[in-house]
């Protein structure tokens, strides 16, 4: 009996144990118990005390850990880590093939023979190539890499035609050693475009053969890697004094998830005046991949030999330039492994010349161009960007467009010109108020040239002595938006401050009036006389009021039938009533009060008597009624700039005035107008 009970219990427990085991296995298959790989920000000393499994830790204060999302969320909430993100996957943008041709049309397109007359680069300029490594040394293949490549003599070899190239100490972030030898073929091809030994009688040429190369392996033998290694690679390049970083790699189009750490590294590089050049991607879509989509980088798309965009090149907002990337029968020729990675292994002991195509191949052209500019003494990133953009061969639509960016850089002109732009950027400011929610204003700023940091420094709104500062956001190339919300009426001044890429500073100002509850009606003024009293003495440039009349009086909201002509008194100067026929309504004056006879239903607009429009170096004044009097323009310090007498003028053009902010004073019989205007 006892035995039977034990057996029954055993069976019962086994059933539970089996179920629990199956459940755990199911959870493990979903990585719930195992955890996933994340990058977390923070010092190693702090992170090691936490309940996470540290896989690797960078001295740049971020670590690769295994944990689950909920745990990390908890740690973040408790302030134990600065941030966390899933490890993003990256892959090389290349499409290897086995065709062979013997000329480099890409260098002809860029006019390299003329460029080389000026410079072939200098070895003090260091280009760091973050890729699958570079075939740069004869080195015994470590045991832990032997399963990833094939070599007849068990050694990595140096590419023959990189013989004269200068290589500096690099790093292999895939295997954590000091030997970033190429395991794939992609990186060596890219290194060749930049620094292939040139004029040596063999092989092919490189664009900047005299610059130094820092090889950094962040992608494995299959051309794959992750954002952790890439971030480490960028920081390493910075520490080694790189001047240019080439990254022919990226993630999925438009997906920024997991690239935050890399973005921080890029910002750090840019702060050191290092140009970070990144491929836009090969997925054909109108969105760049990250990190190319980060505004700090020089993003590069690809064109064919006829200078038209290739079918694969990713385009979109943020694309800066295009360079030869090749397609179909015209691809980019460089030296790489004879047996490059074909889905199995690369042969790393033998090299030949191969045509590759892709934005991966276009990007080193841009990196090399920047290295040449730096070699030539043009070192400031903003200036380099400005020169490349200004002298680019414009493709696609006129000016910048999202298919070609600024176009194909003309390296010779960018090098050779004494170009510098002293002209400050010009702004136009556009305003629109929400028609229902008064005081909610959209402000759009459009500029005529590229701005430092990609947008205006600030937008300030001033009302009386109150100043509020806003950061604009970009909505289209050279167009930025800001949104304001105000609940106090009065005159506001919007000022935009910005510098162009040459450092020229400019500011532009626009005035606007917020006008709440514009009028209220009072009806019992007397027989057939009705008075509109304006609650404030400020107006927007134009304020539409729908006026309906009947024998009982005015109503500004509901349409009614007019039976009796009525009279409208307006107690303010400088305004004008425009009738339904778009003509000013005649009025009489009584002790400064305008008396209007309203005889028709319809839309009546109360407008400023005078409107101003900006023209080039001047301003136009338009009045609904003829002006007679003296018009004077004063600078802000009160100096008289211009003055003229007006006789029956409805339109006055004032030109030949230098840019700035002025006061216009108009003195006519019965009124005096003073207004602040900007002239650009």
């Amino acid at each position, binding site marked *: 009996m006892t035995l039977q009970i034990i057996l029954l219990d055993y069976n019962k427990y086994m059933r539970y144990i089996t179920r629990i085991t199956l459940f755990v296995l199911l959870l493990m298959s979903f990585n719930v118990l195992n955890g996933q790989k994340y990058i977390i920000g923070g010092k190693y000393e702090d992170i090691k005390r936490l309940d996470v499994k540290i896989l690797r830790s960078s001295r740049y204060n971020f670590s690769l850990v295994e944990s689950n999302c909920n745990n990390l969320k908890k740690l973040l909430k408790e302030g134990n880590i600065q941030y966390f993100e899933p490890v993003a996957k990256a892959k090389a943008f290349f499409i290897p093939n086995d065709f062979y041709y013997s000329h480099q049309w890409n260098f002809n397109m860029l006019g390299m023979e003329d460029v080389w007359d000026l410079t072939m680069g200098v070895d003090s300029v260091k280009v760091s190539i973050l890729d699958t490594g570079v075939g740069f040394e004869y080195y015994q293949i470590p045991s832990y890499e032997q399963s990833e490549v094939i070599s007849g003599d068990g050694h990595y070899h140096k590419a023959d035609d990189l013989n004269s190239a200068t290589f500096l100490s690099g790093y292999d972030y895939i295997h954590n050693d000091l030997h970033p030898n190429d395991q794939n073929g992609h990186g060596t091809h890219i290194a060749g475009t930049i620094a292939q030994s040139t004029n040596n009688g063999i092989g092919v040429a490189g664009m900047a053969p005299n610059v130094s190369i820092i090889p950094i392996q962040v992608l494995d033998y299959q051309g794959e890697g992750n954002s952790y290694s890439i971030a480490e690679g960028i920081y390493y390049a910075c520490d080694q004094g790189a001047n240019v970083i080439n990254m022919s790699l990226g993630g999925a189009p438009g997906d920024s998830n997991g690239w935050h750490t890399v973005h921080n590294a890029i910002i750090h590089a840019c702060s050191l005046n290092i140009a970070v050049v990144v491929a836009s991607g090969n997925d054909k879509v109108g969105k760049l991949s990250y990190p190319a989509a980060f505004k700090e980088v020089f993003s590069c798309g690809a064109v064919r030999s006829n200078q038209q965009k290739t079918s694969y090149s990713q385009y979109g*907002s943020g694309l800066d330039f295009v360079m030869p990337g090749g397609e179909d029968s015209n691809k980019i020729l460089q030296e790489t492994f004879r047996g490059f990675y074909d889905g199995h292994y690369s042969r790393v002991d033998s090299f030949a010349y191969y045509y590759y195509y892709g934005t991966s191949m276009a990007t080193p052209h841009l990196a090399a161009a920047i290295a040449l500019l730096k070699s030539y003494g043009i070192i400031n990133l903003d200036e380099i960007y400005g020169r490349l953009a200004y002298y680019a061969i414009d493709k696609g*639509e*006129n*000016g*910048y467009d999202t298919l070609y960016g600024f176009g194909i850089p003309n390296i010779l002109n960018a090098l050779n010109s004494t170009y510098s732009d002293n002209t400050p950027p010009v702004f*136009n400011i*556009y*305003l*629109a*108020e*929400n*028609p*229902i*929610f*008064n*005081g*909610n204003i*959209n402000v*759009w700023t*459009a500029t005529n040239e590229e701005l430092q940091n990609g947008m205006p420094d600030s937008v300030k709104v001033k009302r009386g002595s109150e100043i509020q500062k806003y950061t604009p956001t970009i*909505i*289209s*190339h*050279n*167009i930025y*938006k800001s*949104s304001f*919300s105000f*609940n106090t009426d009065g005159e506001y001044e919007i000022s935009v401050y910005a510098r162009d890429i040459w450092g020229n500073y400019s500011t532009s100002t626009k005035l606007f009036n917020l006008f709440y509850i514009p009028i209220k009606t009072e009806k019992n003024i007397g027989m057939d006389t009705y008075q509109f009293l304006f609650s404030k003495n400020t107006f*927007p*440039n*134009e304020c*539409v009021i*729908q006026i309906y009349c009947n024998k009982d009086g005015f109503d500004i*909201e*509901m*349409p009614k039938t007019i039976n009796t002509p009525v009279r409208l008194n307006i107690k303010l100067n400088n305004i004008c009533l425009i009738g339904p026929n778009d003509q000013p309504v005649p009025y009489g004056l009584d002790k400064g009060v305008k008396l209007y006879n309203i005889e028709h239903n319809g839309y009546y*607009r109360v407008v400023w008597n005078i409107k101003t429009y900006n023209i080039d170096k001047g301003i136009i004044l338009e009045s609904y009624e003829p002006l007679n009097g003296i018009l004077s323009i004063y600078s802000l310090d009160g100096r008289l700039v211009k003055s003229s007498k007006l006789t029956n003028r409805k339109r006055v053009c004032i030109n030949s005035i230098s840019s700035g902010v002025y006061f216009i004073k108009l003195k006519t019989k019965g009124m005096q107008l003073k207004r602040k205007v900007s002239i650009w």
Partner: protein
Amino acid sequence: MVRKYIIILSIILISGCSLFQDNIAEGWKAFENGDYEKARDCFSKETILNANLEAYVGLGWSNAKLGNKESALSSFEYVILEDSINYIDAISGAVFAGSAMCMDSTSAIRGTYFLSKYPNYVFEHDTTATFKQVAFTSACSYVNIGDFSSALLMIKIIEPGFNAIPENEQGKLDILLKIEEISQWI
């Protein structure tokens, strides 16, 4: 005894209906007279007494007129969720409120949908809110998300004769200028 209860219940129901009618009617009357605070109180009372969707529409619009964009949008969203067919004034209100809240994508798409369904819309209780204002607000939102082509389509509802090429920079500036111009009279 039962009859007595039925009579009492009927009185309660009738007075309840009457109360409902009074609050809504009084709310709209106050709204039309520009007394938005009183209108808000009436509609607010009604939402407490009865979960009446029209009261939420009125509450949303009263809050809109008082500048309370979050509350307005919240009322409109509630009505849209419950019945977006019979209370179209909630959709138009949500376009304006959404735009004021910088929820530009939602506001722009909602505006386009609304205008496709009700191209000649006029808000019965405030004739300054028409399809033109909806189109204008949607145009602003489209610009804010960088979609100048759709912004142009919205402007064309207001000014059919206007044209610009939204793909190039000059076209975009033309659109911005036109929006600013319309903003001054709409």
